[in-house]
């Protein structure tokens, strides 16, 4: 017994186990904190839109209505779980799980402040693309498995929309990759902090614009919320879902928004860093412990989330053909032009980028 124990517990293996434990701890922290943010993103949204429409928003549950997200969650959790009689049951069960897991997995590669990332992999950006594409499978499967025309139409629309806009989104970030010379999100942020403006949003304004539009479409938000346009197709792909299965789609969608906001922050707004000239102006800032910078990151993420809500309450919904035309005829050419321009500048004026 003792021999086996000694054989396993070598200094190297303790190190390994410790690493795994730390990773698990990180996962727990990220998922718990992440979901809490998702919950309050719904509250934030309702308050912001209410203010824009001269209403009050939620205010009954808890002080200022702060416990509204929990009330919503409890309600959804205890609702009856209805499954349509002719549903394709295994797929029907699996679809929300795929959608939700794909959204949550993306959280693992996001660096929240310097050195804090669950999986610091070199293909971080590609990984996020892959996961957001996987989410589309959840949508298509739910549409198919529900055995309902509304859900099916919603699923098909959503699939075509996500596929079209993924191209534009991927291309819009190529400029950032060229400038940073890396796909690792932490590296991209570090490269940005060395850049004079501290943010790639300024030199990469074209890419940023394309990314914003594509991000709205990718997360099915207004003005591109055709897959779930409530007045038209009842609810879209999740029409037949209820209770907690519905909540998974709902949470997945908000997680998706949070992730898109994080990508925008990391790739275009300088992540957890402040521009160099600010740091030079206020030298005491560099003395702060690293975890404080997570608030800078969150402030930027929430600014972008606010932008999401702002757009939602400002713009009308696009028609399906308009949506496709914008994606293929405007955004993709713009993103391509941006890549060519960035590449040319990078190779000709080496010092500039």
């Amino acid at each position: 017994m003792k021999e086996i124990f000694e054989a396993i517990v070598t200094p190297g293996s303790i190190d390994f186990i410790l690493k795994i434990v730390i990773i698990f701890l990180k996962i727990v922290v990220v998922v718990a904190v992440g979901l809490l943010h998702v919950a309050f993103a719904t509250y934030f949204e309702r308050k912001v839109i209410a203010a824009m429409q001269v209403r009050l928003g939620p205010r009954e549950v808890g002080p200022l209505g702060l416990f509204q997200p929990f009330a919503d969650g409890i309600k959804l959790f205890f609702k009856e779980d209805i499954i349509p009689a002719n549903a394709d049951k295994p797929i029907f069960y699996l679809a929300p799980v795929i959608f939700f897991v794909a959204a949550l997995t993306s959280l693992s590669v996001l660096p929240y402040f310097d050195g804090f990332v669950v999986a610091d992999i070199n293909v971080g950006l590609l990984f996020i693309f892959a996961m957001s594409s996987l989410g589309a499978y959840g949508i298509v499967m739910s549409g198919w498995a529900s055995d309902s025309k509304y859900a099916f139409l919603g699923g098909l629309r959503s699939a075509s929309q996500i596929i079209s806009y993924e191209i534009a989104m991927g291309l819009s970030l190529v400029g950032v990759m060229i400038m940073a010379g890396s796909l690792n999100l932490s590296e991209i942020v570090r490269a940005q902090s060395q850049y004079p403006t501290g943010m790639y949003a300024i030199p990469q304004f074209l890419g940023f614009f394309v990314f914003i539009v594509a991000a709205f479409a990718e997360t099915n938000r207004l003005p591109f919320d055709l897959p779930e346009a409530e007045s038209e197709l009842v609810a879209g792909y999740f029409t037949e879902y209820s209770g907690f299965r519905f909540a998974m789609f709902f949470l997945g969608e908000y997680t998706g928004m949070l992730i898109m906001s994080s990508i925008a922050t990391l790739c275009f707004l300088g992540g957890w860093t402040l521009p160099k000239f600010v740091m030079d102006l206020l030298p005491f800032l560099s003395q702060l412990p690293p975890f404080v910078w997570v608030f800078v990151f969150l402030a930027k993420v929430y600014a972008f989330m606010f932008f999401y809500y702002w757009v939602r309450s400002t713009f009308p919904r696009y028609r399906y053909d308009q949506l496709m035309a914008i994606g293929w005829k405007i955004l993709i050419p713009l993103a391509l032009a941006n890549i060519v321009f960035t590449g040319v500048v990078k190779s000709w004026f080496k010092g500039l980028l």
Partner: protein
Amino acid sequence: MDYILRKAIKTKENLNEIYMEVSGYDFRDSCVYIYEKKNAILRLMFATDERPVDGSFRIYTVFSIPGDERLFIIVLSLKEPDMTFPSITPYIPAAHWYEREIRDMFGLIPEGHPDPRRLVLHDSFPAGSYPLRKDWNVIERDMKEWGEGKAVKEPYKFMEVEGEGIYEIPVGPVHAGIIEPGHFRFSAVGETIIFLEPRLFYTHKGTEKHFEKIGFTEGVRLSERVSGTSSFSHSAAYCMAVERMTGLDITENAKAIRTLLLELERLYNHIGDIGNMCAGTGLAVGYARGAVIKEHLMQLNERLTGSRYLRGINIIGGVRKDVFIHRDDLISTIDAVTKEYKEMMKLLLDTISHVERLENTGKLSNEIARKLGVTGVAARASGINDDMRKAHPHLLYGRLDFEPHSMSRGDVFARMMIRAEETECSISIVNSLLENSYKGGLVAEMKEIPPYSSAFGYTESPRGSMFYWVMSDENGEPLRVKLRAPSYCNWPAVPFAVHGNIVPDFPLCNKSFNLSYSGCDM
């Protein structure tokens, strides 16, 4: 007119109504003549059971000729056992619903009508039972038959579109939002609508039958409750019909108050509708703004009359309350609303993506609108310049200076712009009404209702022309009350407007017409 008058067996004039009774041979000819040669508009068509009077059923076909204030009514008498009349639908398509309703409710058969299906009655309603006949009794016979489970006598057959890649999307009658029941069956290829068949009348309430039972005075309250957002137009038209029948002349003051409240009703409806169209495109800010202004106007209604929907103010012979004592409140609220409304319109017209969705969506051509007898905003947006306020001036409209607008493009955008122009027109009418003072008390003295007399009452409601026709029996109680709300004329036009559009644009097209279900399922 001489053409018909020569053929007429009997003629009668009452105020601006000219009744011309023709024989069964001449009925169709006369109708087609006035429709084609005089370019007349078919206002309504209805039947009455006048067997207690002279043993016959009558069919009234009401036309109005542009530029002529009179109403021309071609009447056909039917005596048992011949219960058929020549259908005019093949020549005047606008009559198609009226004739089917007459068949359902009276058992008078329009011969040559292309559509043999029921319109108003439920599938399981017993065949051979005609509710609007005077001798119909619900308790003894029909309820028993219903109870015995002899349901579905005539299952409704929907039109089927065949071809490769065509699929049907059924929507309703239970909807996701809080709206009334209506079933819509789309036949679509991809996203494009090839054919839409709406089925309505799910909540047919037998309103006309009920009017006959409750007497003329109570009828005002019933008319107010036919359709919520045009309560005042309904009661104003109903009161007008009864007043004209009894020869009652209401005071100038009462006329002014009715005119003012009709315009206030139009205002809150039109602004609310413009806001609702934004809900169709998902423009939340426009929708919210429309709702805010509508709320201001409805609160004004409450301060003026005690009812947000302007109920309980009309009575036969006048109005219950003087609203001109609130002159200052009216002026300041209308001023504030005008300012907010102008800001809202600027915002909507500056939002290019909103305007782009409205333009060229839901086009209703002038030809189809004319053939189907479309009325109100939808008609004026399709180039038919018809407004009851001008065509048949009533109340104080004859004195007021305004021009109805029309546009020829016929799309959703045109329907929004017509509403916008009429909103401004209503604001100026309200302001000019407030400048003067009016003579007379609130209520004119009641007169006895003469037996077997009849008259029309009409007005331009926010949705379009509205008609009431009342007839008294030997005791001065109602023998027949016919009402025709604008939604009844406009529903058949919706399928034509959405043809060739994509399915997601249907709610937008539908909202641009903003039709009432209960104004149709009477």
